[in-house]
């Protein structure tokens, strides 16, 4: 598979590298050519030296200066010799050009080459030739310079073009596409070029952006619809428990008894309202948004107490961590374990135990009953949606929903049998702050009367964290109806709200809301006003 490359990488591979290779190749070829030229030239020089030596031998034999002078002068002018010297019995006799110092020597061994030729017909004489070692060095340097002058500007111009494309087209396109902007930097960049092809590209781009927006909207709506469908199904299942409780009231004998059950009626109605509210916000139902929240058993168990008493089943909470603060999506976690307890009430003979445990940063909640357990053949589809066993009115949603919620927390729900008992275990990973002491009174017993007004807590983490505690406490003293300020907790400045609108606003955003507090916001009143403005509470 071909991985996409960066523009730089593409430029290097397709342009810079070939140019480098071309320059390198040209330089190597020039070196080879220069060496070859030198070799050829020196062959010519040697041939000329041999020919001239024969002429000089004749001149020396005849003592004819005309032959010697014209022959050597012609060779100097035409055969690349820098100097020609004649020695007689080792003593300098003649040179062309005229040599005063009688030392016929090259000015530089690097630039000049010396070689002697013995004249066989006049053995007393020898001729020394001095020739340029690199006769074409100027040509070579010019070639090198021309190569460099041609190749490097081309390279840099291409680099410039690539960078212009990157700066003026690709980067604006990235920004515009990222934000699905039509009149963004990409549009501005294209308008600068004023090129027909680019304008066409922009038109096409605008069309595609509109299309993408529409498709995204559709997909969002479809997701929302699907979630609503699922939740309706789920709520149909969940509503049966409170309705069952209310139904039971119809069979009570007198008003006094009904009066004693008012609390149950009220809680059942509350649960149904809560579920209806979930229905209203169906698209958010499956979103798990862990926050630091308090674990409470009272809310969840309120609706199950009647059923338990009717079936004479004791619900016992072992190692109770009621009131502990965990990182979780509390309402959904409650829904999960309530489903497990509800199932246990159907299967248990005499007793159900709710056992909680903290291990490291993980939190475990086990629902243990003394029922017969799940048959082996049903185990593979135990947590599948629609799978039910042993209940004449089962919908097969409870366990599937519990698993979905726990997996949404990064954990899971497990089933096992131990010592004749059925155990469903919820695992909440990384939910515990280890620095806290979670040792609880094992004897604390569930009290159905502990049902409290629902308070939805929302954490808003301010930036900078250095927002002083005094400012927070000052904000808390405002006793706002919208925000309950609880101060610094877990390294963040926490603001707690009991207003749904605040929660929804935050839930629709990121999992954790960071609000940068500018000094320009002023004091606590100013910050509060800003928060209200942000959450449309003003």
């Amino acid at each position, binding site marked *: 598979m071909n991985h996409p490359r960066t523009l730089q990488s593409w430029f290097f591979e397709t342009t810079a590298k070939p140019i480098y290779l071309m320059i390198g190749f040209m330089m190597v070829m020039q070196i080879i050519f220069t060496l070859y030229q030198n070799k050829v030239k020196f062959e010519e020089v040697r041939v000329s030296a041999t020919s001239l030596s024969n002429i000089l031998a004749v001149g*020396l034999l005849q003592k004819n200066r005309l032959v010697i002078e014209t022959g050597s002068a012609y060779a*100097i002018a035409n055969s690349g010799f820098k100097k020609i010297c004649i020695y007689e019995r080792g003593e300098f006799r003649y040179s062309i050009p005229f040599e005063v110092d009688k030392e016929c020597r090259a000015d530089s061994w690097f630039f000049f080459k010396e070689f002697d030729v013995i004249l066989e017909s006049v053995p007393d004489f020898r001729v020394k030739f001095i020739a340029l070692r690199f006769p074409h060095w100027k040509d070579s340097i010019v070639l090198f310079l021309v190569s460099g002058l041609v190749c490097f500007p081309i390279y840099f111009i291409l680099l410039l073009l690539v960078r212009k494309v990157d700066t003026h087209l690709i980067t604006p396109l990235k920004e515009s596409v990222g934000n699905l902007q039509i009149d963004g930097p990409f549009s501005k960049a294209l308008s600068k070029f004023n090129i027909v092809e680019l304008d066409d590209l922009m038109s096409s781009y605008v069309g595609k952006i509109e299309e993408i927006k529409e498709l995204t909207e559709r997909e969002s709506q479809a997701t929302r619809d699907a979630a609503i469908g699922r939740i309706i199904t789920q709520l149909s299942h969940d509503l049966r428990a409170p309705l069952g409780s209310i139904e039971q009231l119809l069979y009570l004998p007198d008003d006094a008894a009904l009066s004693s059950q008012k609390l149950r009626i009220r809680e059942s109605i509350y649960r149904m309202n809560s579920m209806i509210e979930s229905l209203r916000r169906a698209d958010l139902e499956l979103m798990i948004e862990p926050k630091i929240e308090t674990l409470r058993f009272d809310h969840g168990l309120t609706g199950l107490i009647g059923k338990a008493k009717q079936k004479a089943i004791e619900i016992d909470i072992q190692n109770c961590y009621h009131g502990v603060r965990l990182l979780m999506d509390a309402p959904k976690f409650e829904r999960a374990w309530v489903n497990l307890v509800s199932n246990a009430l159907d299967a248990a003979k005499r007793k159900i135990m709710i056992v909680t445990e903290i291990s490291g940063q993980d939190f475990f909640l086990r629902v243990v009953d003394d029922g017969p357990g799940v048959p082996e053949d049903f185990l593979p589809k135990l947590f599948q949606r629609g799978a039910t066993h042993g209940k004449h009115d089962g919908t097969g949603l409870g366990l599937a929903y519990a698993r979905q919620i726990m997996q949404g927390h990064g954990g899971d729900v497990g089933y096992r049998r131990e010592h004749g008992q059925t155990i469903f275990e919820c695992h909440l990973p990384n939910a515990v702050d280890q620095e806290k002491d979670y040792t609880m009174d094992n004897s604390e017993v569930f009290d159905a009367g502990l049902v409290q007004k629902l308070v939805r807590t929302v954490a808003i983490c301010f930036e900078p964290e250095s927002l002083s505690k005094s400012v927070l406490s000052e904000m808390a003293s405002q006793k706002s109806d919208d925000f309950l300020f609880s101060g610094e907790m877990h390294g963040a400045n926490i603001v707690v709200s009991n207003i749904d609108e605040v929660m929804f606003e935050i839930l629709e955003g990121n999992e954790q809301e960071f609000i940068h507090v500018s000094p320009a916001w002023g004091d606590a009143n100013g910050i509060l006003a800003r928060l209200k403005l942000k959450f449309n509470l003003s």
Partner: protein
Amino acid sequence: MQIKAKAKIFVLIGLGAIIASAAFWAKSQSAGKKLQPNRTVRVAFGVQWKLPLYPASQHSMIEDAILANQFESLVTRGENGLILPQCAKSYRFNDDFTVFDFDIDTSRRFSDGSTLTASDFKRSWEEGLRLRKNSANRNLEDMVTLVVGFEDFDRTGSLRGVEVISSDHLRVTFKRPFRMALMHLTGSRFAAFQHSGEKFLGTGRFVISPVTDSILQLKRNLFHPTDGGLQSIEIVYLEDPEKAIALGDIDIVAMSATRVDETDELKVTVGVEDASLFFHLNGLKGRTFSESRLRLAFQALVHQILKENPDAIKNTRERFQVDEQTFLPLQAGRLPQNQAAALVAEGDQYIDMLIKASQVQPIKIAMGKTFSFLEVALQRKGLKIISRRYTSTEDYFNEFYYKHESDVALGTASVHLSDPDGMYHYLGKHGAITSPMIQRPLVAELFEVGRNITDQDQIVAHYQKAAEAILKEVPAVHLGFVSHSYIYRADRLQVDRHYLERHFDQFAKVFNLK
């Protein structure tokens, strides 16, 4: 992605270099072709000439170089030493080198528009023999004495051996075989000229017009067929031409013997030994050096001093090389080095005699500016001398050719041809630049005979005898050879013939404007 400033700089440098290279290339291309007709090239000589300038007046290498620009002879020397037709379209000679026929190029014209014919040569040579001589002998004598009928010239006024067969056919008949006849005829002194009052007209590329005694203007001869090249030349005499060219006042220093380190602006042509430096010894009757032993002694003493003072020679900055022998190295007539050294050393035994003689009769030495260390060195050796400096070039020529007041006169002679007969100019009986003070009968006779030898083997043997005679008779003490070159402004001129032979050619054949 930000564009790095370095990349931008590289691009700018690259583009700048391309533009600069292109501009440089374009400039060099145009500079090589562009002709600047109004540009006058200024040429300086460090030695002065004598006016008026006409072919037969030539008696120095300077004048030879100047005259070649206006006056053309029958033949000329090509780049490779070959003798090429010039005013003669072609030439022929018989087997014994006595009869030479020349086909004259009658399409050539003098600068007044008149046509060149064969009779112009006969007339010019005859007139040249009648014009005032600038040396001891008439300038053309060294050749025309061998022409048939020369002995009757003073009586008849005509050279019988020079015949005008037709307007375009000239025949020259020599009494005896003349090996170097053609070579001698290449000199501008044998050119055809028209004589009109003070003006001398030639067929050459330029017309020379004296502005002052020290400045000559050379303007184009409009009837000369050659186009292009240099259009206007000014020749000036300067005492320190090397300084002037370094300052950019002139373009060429002609025939400079000064060593110059080449730069981008100043370049030097390549030359060979083209002049000899002599102590001419006055051997006239009654003079100190009429005694041959004293001449030998002086020769030995001078070479002792030269060997003992190599640094002093180097400090002269001359392109000079010490050599006892008059003939060029590797030339016919050149003696083995040890033989020459032995002959010179024969004078050692007479040095005391010379010193004693000088106590009685101090030796008068006339010199120029250079080699003054020799005077001091001679005095240190015990020689009593009376020295004087030449006041001018004219002063030297007067002394050497006519006055003969000095016993020793330092001078330069550019007489070397490739053939040893070149030395005839200086030591031959009818030599153009000889002087009675250096005439030695034995030497003169050997040179007279030598010019008629045509067998190469005989030439070598004969001139070795002449060389021995020179070292024994000592007409002059040969100090060594000088190589002259042209120094030129390479930023203004390009050189077309980098190698220069002894007979320096026309400026327009050597240089061109950039």
